[in-house]
């Protein structure tokens, strides 16, 4: 692939922060909602912030807090978290072409910030081209900081505020996925990309309907859809 030989994209840390602005906008209401829920589930403000800092994974934090409140034992919560977050294996692998030139210690740190949202923004911008560690760090750190801060504010505000969903803010992340999906459907292998997108959507929905509550839908749908994409080229 030609992408391997192209020069480093000269993106600064500040460009990373700017690129991450929609991620931050999306994390604000979700982090806030998580903070409110975590308090209601019996976590302290400090524990809420610590969870967002250490775990840093939206859906598994909601699930984990729910399980904790339901009195589920720690090993089960950790096992569930592992399954829910296993899909990051694929994202981490897909970032190799853009980050392989970095020192291992840099990638060891940068990997902490790989989420559905930062991954989607990074890949939409980079398109397989190499990125500077500063760009990735700018995007990852600002998104992570926003997640921690908004969950702490949510924990502090607690019951003071009403329903954040009424403001439509719960749709921020799905809307971001819409905006990030479109650039992925362009390019010379467009037909294969449309095919992969259609297969991913169909398989994910089929798995969720057949096995409600499963943690495997995204990872299995992605593996099948990417394979179909390769075959369609």
């Amino acid at each position, binding site marked *: 692939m030609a992408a391997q030989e192209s020069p480093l994209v000269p993106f600064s840390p500040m460009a990373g922060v700017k690129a991450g602005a929609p991620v931050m906008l999306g994390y604000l209401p979700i982090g806030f909602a998580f903070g409110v829920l975590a308090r209601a589930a019996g976590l302290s403000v400090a524990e809420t912030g610590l969870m967002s800092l250490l775990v840093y994974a939206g859906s598994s934090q909601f699930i984990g807090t729910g399980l904790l409140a339901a009195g589920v034992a720690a090993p089960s919560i950790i096992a569930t978290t592992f399954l829910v977050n296993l899909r990051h294996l694929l994202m981490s692998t897909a970032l190799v072409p853009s980050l392989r030139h970095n020192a291992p210690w840099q990638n060891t740190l940068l990997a902490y910030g790989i989420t559905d949202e930062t991954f989607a923004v990074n*890949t939409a911008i980079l398109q397989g081209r190499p990125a500077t560690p500063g760009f990735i760090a700018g995007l990852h750190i600002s998104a992570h900081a926003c997640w921690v801060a908004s969950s702490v504010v949510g924990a502090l505000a607690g019951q003071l505020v009403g329903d954040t969903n009424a403001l439509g803010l719960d749709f921020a992340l799905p809307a971001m*996925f819409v905006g990030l999906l479109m650039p992925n459907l362009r390019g010379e292998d467009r037909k294969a990309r449309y095919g992969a997108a259609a297969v991913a959507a169909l398989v994910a*929905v089929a798995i969720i309907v057949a096995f409600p509550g499963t943690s495997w839908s995204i990872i299995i749908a992605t593996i099948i859809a990417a394979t179909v994409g390769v075959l369609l*080229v």
Partner: protein
Amino acid sequence: MMTVRPAILALFLGMALVTYLPRMAPLVILSRFELPPLLLRWLSFVPVSVLSALLAKELFINGSRLDLSLGHPQLLAAIPAFLVAIKTRSLMGTVVAGIAAMALIRLIA
């Protein structure tokens, strides 16, 4: 309010570890190897596939059931978001349009 119970901290550390390992291991380990072209091609389809799967889960699933009706707020709000995304190619514009559409739907419903 500022207390951190040791058992809770241990739980978070456990959750953090099992979340971090799948994020870190492939990137750090596979960066040492030259990846075969076929695998690189396959990986180039991961973003579009992950996004589409995540989006399908949000837009077509209500609870754990398939809901393709316009009574499903997420599906309805996605229409203006898609239109703005196609027209403007602006990520921020798409997010704002989606939020505004959802707020409007909730106001009317």
